[in-house]
Structure formats: C-alpha cells, structure tokens
C-alpha cells in the first residue's frame, strides 16, 4: 500500500484558529476529522495534501446534546460509534443509531465522524438518509459567519457541497420530533458488514389510530442518485392513506421511478432501482411495526412485517 507524501499537520484549538490556518497556508489544505475517508483518498486515490488541519482538538465540535425543546445537537466530530451507542439517540431515533452502526467496523466507527460522513458527500453515506427523514439542519462556520442550511440542500453532487474552501461543518441539528414518530433505515448490501450501501432507504412516519392511517411521512434514499434524496412522490402515495402491503408496494414503485441510479462495480442501475422498490416497501412496513428500542444487529435486517 502506498505511503503518504510529506505534509504538515496542524492541531488548532478553536474553529477560528482552524479557519485562519486554512486561509494563511493557502490551497492544498484539508481538514481532518476521523481520517477514514481522507487517509483512503491519500493512500488509494493519490490525493496529495500540502497540509492537514486536524479538527479533533476543537472541543466545541464534539458531543451530543438534547435541548429543552427536544431538538438534538450532534457535534460534527461526534464519532459514528458515539452516535450508535448514544442513549438519547437510540431511545428517540433508533434508526439513526442503527444507520451509524452500519458503517464499517467498530474500529472504523471509533474514528469516523458524522460530520466527515456528511462533508465527504458520498451518495451512499449511511447516516444521511436517516438524517434527511428527521429534517436535520447543518451549521457551517464560514468567512461570513455561521450559516444554517437544511441537510437536503447541503449536497450539490458526488463529493460536492455548499461549503466553500475553508468552511467548517460544526454541528447537525435534529429539530424537535413527535414522540410517536416511528422510523427505519435499511442498508441494502449483499454483505452484512464491511460493505457500502448498494441502496439505502430511511423512513420516518406518524400514523393515526389502530388503522395505521398515515399522517406524515418522509422517505429518503441513498446511493441511487448523485446526492442522497427525499422520495417525495413515494411520500405523496402514503399521506392520508392506510399503510398496508398494498400502499407500501405502491410507494416503493414511486420511489423506484423517481430515483436516478447508476451502474457501477457494485450493482447495475436496474438492480438498484428494483432494490429501491423492495426495500422502500420493507422499510415502510418495518417502520409501522415499530421496534422495541435499539435492536441487536442480528435482528436489524429481519423482516418484521
């Protein structure tokens, strides 16, 4: 395996200092969080940074906290493992903890950060669909001060976001949500572990009464379009309808029609589309069945409907 070319590493203690380092040293600098994408880019893809600015000494970027209004704030440097085992997240949004727990291995998740997953802007990023159905906002520190944007409009294309050079992603905010919200994330990949999503589907919904009439629903897809996307046509199929096999099937068809997958080493576009149909249906039906807290991983992929 190739070794990195020389570069310097700075370890600023504040966001301000990190941004200044970036401005002062000019082009060719990269921010470093867990390094699980950056080190791979350097070792495998021939990226040659001139310098690297490590964000891990900036205390304000880490941690997970719940505000009095019920919103959750996840520091960009919160690791995937922290999100996976966080009590408050696994109690309120078990499908979000699960999506973090689907990333790589424990070794990877001890380093990989939620901010890095978002900033890297891979279409298959596992936490993104779950955050999209929670209508998360992201805060960035820019030259013109702090900015907040909905996660949905953060991505511009594979590897491209609204962030400009020197901008730092600081936190992810999950707005207050009903305690009755139910959700699901399905990472579809033939290997159970250590593989990227061929298709990712997240669902969050609110239903009325015992008949499972859908009051509100959000569906998001990963790995099947240039940026992770909301499947609004599929959502429209379900609103104010009873959720059952038939309506879930139709929502799955709608999702399959509105995504724009590509063929690559992992799967053909046609296969991905088909898997969007199947897994959207499955995710919807799993979500209405609910789940008792955070299920052990073996139970995660079971069909529960």
């Amino acid at each position: 395996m190739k070794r990195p070319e020389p570069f310097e590493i700075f370890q600023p203690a504040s966001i301000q200092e990190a941004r200044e380092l970036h401005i002062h040293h000019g082009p060719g600098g990269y921010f470093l969080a867990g390094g699980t994408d950056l080190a791979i880019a350097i070792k495998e893809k021939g990226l040659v940074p001139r310098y690297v600015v490590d964000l891990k000494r900036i205390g304000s970027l880490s941690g997970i906290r719940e505000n009095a209004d019920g919103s959750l704030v996840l520091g960009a440097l919160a690791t995937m493992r922290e999100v996976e085992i966080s009590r408050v997240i696994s109690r309120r949004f078990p499908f979000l903890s699960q999506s973090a727990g689907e990333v790589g291995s424990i070794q990877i998740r001890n380093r990989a950060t939620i901010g890095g997953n978002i900033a890297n802007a891979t279409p298959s990023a596992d936490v993104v669909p779950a955050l999209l159905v929670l209508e998360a906002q992201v805060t960035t520190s820019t030259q013109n001060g702090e900015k907040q944007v909905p996660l949905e409009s953060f991505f511009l294309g594979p590897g491209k976001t609204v962030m400009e050079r020197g901008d730092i992603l600081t936190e992810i905010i999950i707005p207050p949500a009903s305690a009755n919200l139910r959700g699901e994330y399905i990472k579809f990949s033939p290997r159970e572990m250590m593989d990227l999503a061929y298709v990712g589907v997240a669902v969050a919904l609110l239903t009325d009464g015992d008949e499972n009439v859908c009051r509100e629903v959000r569906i998001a897809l990963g790995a099947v379009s240039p940026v992770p996307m909301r499947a609004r046509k599929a959502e429209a199929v379900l609103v104010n309808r009873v959720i059952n096999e038939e309506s879930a099937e139709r929502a799955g068809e709608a999702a399959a029609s509105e995504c724009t997958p590509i063929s690559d080493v992992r799967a053909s576009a046609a296969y991905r589309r088909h898997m969007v149909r199947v897994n959207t249906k499955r995710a919807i039906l799993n979500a209405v069945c609910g789940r008792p807290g955070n299920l052990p991983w073996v139970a995660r992929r079971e069909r529960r409907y």
Partner: protein
Amino acid sequence: MQCVAVPAIFPGWPGERGDINKKIRITLNGQERILEVVPYRLLLDLLRDEMGMTGTKEGCGTGDCGACTVLLHGKPVNSCLVFSGELDGADIVTIEGLKIGPELHPVQDAFRQDGGAQCGYCTPGMLMMTTALLRENEQPTEEEIRFALSGNLCRCTGYAKIIQAVQRAAEMMREKKITEAKG
C-alpha cells in the same frame, strides 16, 4: 523520561522532510515517551519501523482487515489510517502491551488453547479487538462476538475457533475476577 530519536530503523524515506517533524508525547504500552515524529507517517509504520514493535500487522492498508488494530485511548482503531502527527497526548496499547509480566493475557491464552490462530497474521488484531470487546461486555453472545469482530478478517481459521477462543477468554476473565474478589 525516555526520548527516542526518530527515525531509528529505516532512515530517510523517499521525499522525507525533516523541517515539518513534530514533537509528541505519548503513552505507549504504559510507558510515557517523547518522540520526534514525521507527521504524515502512519501510526502503523511508526510502531513497526521506528519503535521496532512489529507485532501489529499490515494486511490491506485501507481499514478493511483489522490486522493493524491497536487501542487508542482505550478504543480499537485501525493504525493504518492514523497519522503520527495526530498523536500528541495519545495513549496507545499494542499487542506487545497486552501481556503484563510473565503470564499470558487470558485472551492470548484462550486463543492458544483453542487454536484461534493458524498462520497468526490476523491474530494480533483479533486479540486487540477481543480485549476491547471483553472490557465492554463480559459475557458476549456468539452474535455479539461476530459483530465485534466483523472488521477483523482471517483467511485461515474459518472463524469457528476464534469465536470459541473469545468465549473461553471471557470465561477465564470472569473466573479470574471472581478469584481476585475472593482475595
């Protein structure tokens, strides 16, 4: 305090620049050390080529196989994806630091007894990951063991004996704890 001059074993890698070297203070296997490191050098290479600790192995170099697993601040990580320049203040434990004194660590002993190692290449990583697992979970189920070891690949054993060894290690560690508690 020990100050190890670097580079010690393989001097002068191609394109090396001394001007950006960084002084770091780390705890390595319980010993405090001050090192002058090449910031972009991988922790894996720092351990193997500069500290002479060749127990940690490189399999893939890309975070997939777990052969390079070490504990960083008590948590298992892939040392092939960590840069030396990030390490000031780090607490690192490698396979060389598992055994304290003449006796094998229960995890090592269990792998030995159960044939959890064949060629042995994956073994240091497996042992570090198992140690981390058993610290968090004294009595893991087979599924929990498989989940925890999913980032550690082995091409020899077929995993059955590894899982058996982890279960035995868990048992040995629980017994040890009970004996110690009895004084």
